[in-house]
């Protein structure tokens, strides 16, 4: 009688148990890593989502000709106009200290905002006007409900007096939350309520542009030469080993190299995307070379042989037949390298891209900062409201990373030739 079941012996029960154990261990590992990912994203999104909304306070300002000369708008003192408007709204506030608190409800940027609104729309002039201005970071915390009023006053960022004033504004409809356009259109600022991400985003974009323009052609050229032309001898072995080692060098070392060579020796302007891009290009070069060589190696040699047998020169054979097939793999490698560069902070600190940049850079020769450096700066800032900005900046950075990887996948799909 033949037995084909587990009872047939051969140590089957024990072998099956080992099988199941391993599979469950694998599922457990995936579950744990997924849980960490979920926790990370939940915490970042939970912290950063508030950035979408921004609090505004309505101030009624006197824009009559006595206060503002219509011919000469810039000469007016908008700061005192805003303060006067606030005093008029709260006539009961008299003490100097309380007045200071009252003025602190709106951002220090409020006066400029009023001026900008008038410049954009001069018809506002000639009478009392109610204008919306940005609330201060602490007022914003209260309006968006992030202040725990159960805590004793000394442990709160917002005092009882301020809460009373804000409650009154909210009741009268003079405080509201709107979409925070400023976060995406402003540069950095000392004031969290008007600090935006555009300057660092542009800085990152320019830096990556320089990085890509340098490392992609160089990396692909080096890979083609090493893979297809270089004689296989001790020298090329040495180069190969060193490229692999370079890929593992800590990025801060490349930063120091950039500091001493690009800034110190070559005298290029510090803090600029040009130098940042050059340093990051050094860092991504090995990644691109390694990925490109792997892509070249995966092309069936028969294409090259066929072209050579037809009388193509080696360069023609490679550029006409090997490169098009290897291109998707090369591009993927390049984009992975770029994604790495986008998230890199340490080398940028070394070459001075850690500066406080308010203006949005428009060329690679202007001082700039990059997204991860901006995150570092905001995380380091003392104001409570910057935690929200930090998380939001991380979301922006992650979004761009995901987008880049998505582009890599789509490019791969589109360009891949079947053979």
């Amino acid at each position, binding site marked *: 009688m033949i037995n084909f079941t587990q009872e047939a012996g051969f140590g089957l029960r024990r072998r099956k148990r080992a099988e199941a154990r391993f599979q469950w261990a694998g599922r457990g590992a995936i579950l744990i890593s997924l849980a960490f990912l979920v926790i990370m994203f939940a915490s970042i999104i939970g912290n950063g989502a508030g950035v979408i909304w921004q609090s505004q306070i309505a101030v009624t300002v006197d824009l009559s000709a006595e206060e503002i000369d219509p011919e000469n708008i810039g000469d007016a003192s908008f700061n005192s106009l805003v303060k006067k408007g606030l005093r008029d709204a709260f006539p009961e506030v008299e003490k100097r200290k309380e007045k200071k608190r009252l003025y602190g409800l709106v951002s220090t940027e409020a006066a400029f905002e009023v001026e900008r609104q008038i410049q954009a729309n001069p018809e506002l002039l000639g009478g009392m006007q109610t204008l919306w201005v940005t609330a201060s970071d602490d007022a914003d915390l209260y309006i968006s409900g992030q202040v725990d009023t159960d805590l004793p006053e000394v442990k709160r960022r917002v005092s009882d007096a301020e809460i009373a004033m804000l409650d009154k504004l909210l009741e009268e409809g003079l405080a509201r939350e709107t979409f925070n356009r400023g976060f995406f259109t402003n540069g950095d600022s000392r004031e969290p309520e008007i600090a935006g991400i555009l300057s660092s985003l542009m800085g990152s974009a320019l830096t990556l542009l320089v990085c890509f323009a340098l490392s992609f052609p160089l990396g692909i050229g080096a890979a083609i030469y090493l893979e297809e032309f270089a*004689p*296989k001898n001790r020298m090329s072995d040495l180069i190969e080993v060193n490229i692999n080692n370079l890929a593992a060098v800590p990025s801060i070392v490349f930063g120091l190299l950039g500091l001493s060579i690009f800034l110190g020796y070559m005298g290029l302007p510090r803090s600029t995307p040009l130098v940042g891009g050059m340093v990051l290009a050094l860092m991504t070069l090995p990644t691109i070379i390694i990925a490109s060589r792997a892509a070249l190696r995966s092309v*069936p040699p*028969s*294409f090259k*042989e*066929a*072209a*050579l*047998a*037809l*009388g*193509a*020169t080696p360069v*023609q054979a490679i550029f*006409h*037949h090997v490169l*098009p*097939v290897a291109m998707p793999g090369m591009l993927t490698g390049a984009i992975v390298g770029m994604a790495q560069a986008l998230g890199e902070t340490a080398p940028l600190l070394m070459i001075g891209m850690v500066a406080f940049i308010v203006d949005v850079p428009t060329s690679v020769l202007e001082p700039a900062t990059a997204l991860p450096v901006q995150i570092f700066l905001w995380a380091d800032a003392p104001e409570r409201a910057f935690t929200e900005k930090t998380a939001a900046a991380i979301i922006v950075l992650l979004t761009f990373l995901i987008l880049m990887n998505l582009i890599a996948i789509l490019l791969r799909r589109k360009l891949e*030739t*079947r*053979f």
Partner: protein
Amino acid sequence: MDQTLIQTPVADANFVGQPATPTPPEKVSEMEQSFIQARKANVFYGEKQALFDINLDIEEKRVTALIGPSGCGKSTFLRAINRMNDLIPICRFDGNLTIAGQEIYDPAVDVVALRAQVGMVFQKPNPFPKSIFENVAYGLKIHGMTSSKTEMADRVEWSLKSAGLWDEVHDRLDQPGNSLSGGQQQRLCIARTVAVAPKVILMDEPCSALDPIATAKVEDLIDSLRKDYTIVIVTHSMQQAARISQRTAFFHLGKLIEVGATKDVFTNPREEQTQNYITGRIG
């Protein structure tokens, strides 16, 4: 001047510099002189010697089959004729190999010019991952052989007709070459080779990846190409060698054992080793 009309084959094939202009080869009477001549040809892979003192004459406009068991050096010899062995860094050639009287291992010989005139068809069909038209036009393009689009189209059509593929693909020239069947792909590769008007076509087991029907078509094609080209074919199938070749060379362990008219080699071999191989006792 068409090289095939010259009586003395000295220095007529122009391997140095530009390839000859593409004129469809004309019919001429067969010549007695051997077109490809190997004298004391030795090939080494590093320390290992793969071919030993090969003396072989290959006649013009004939099909010469190289047969022998695996590893006997027949493919190595084939690839020595268009210097594809140069691609292997450790491979070294020693001796003389002339085509139409010209030493092809001469330093003055440009390997690109040589390969433009000594075409090759590989074991596995390897069309480029491009359209059928592009596959055939590629050689014409890189050699600048046609001056206008219509001329190129004509030449592509002529090549596909020569390869017996035109009727099957004329309405889908823009489709990828690898959308064809295996046999069609191999004929496309032959069309690609024929397009640049080579003097010699080398074939490295061209039918080993094909089914019997596709094989028959390729064999018919080889037979029809014989009148215009000198063909050297490596094959594992002795029936194929007997069917399509006029001359057969038998290799064994890197040595040329016997060469002669195919009929004689298969029916009345001079050497015992040949006898053993064709009757299936070795190999």
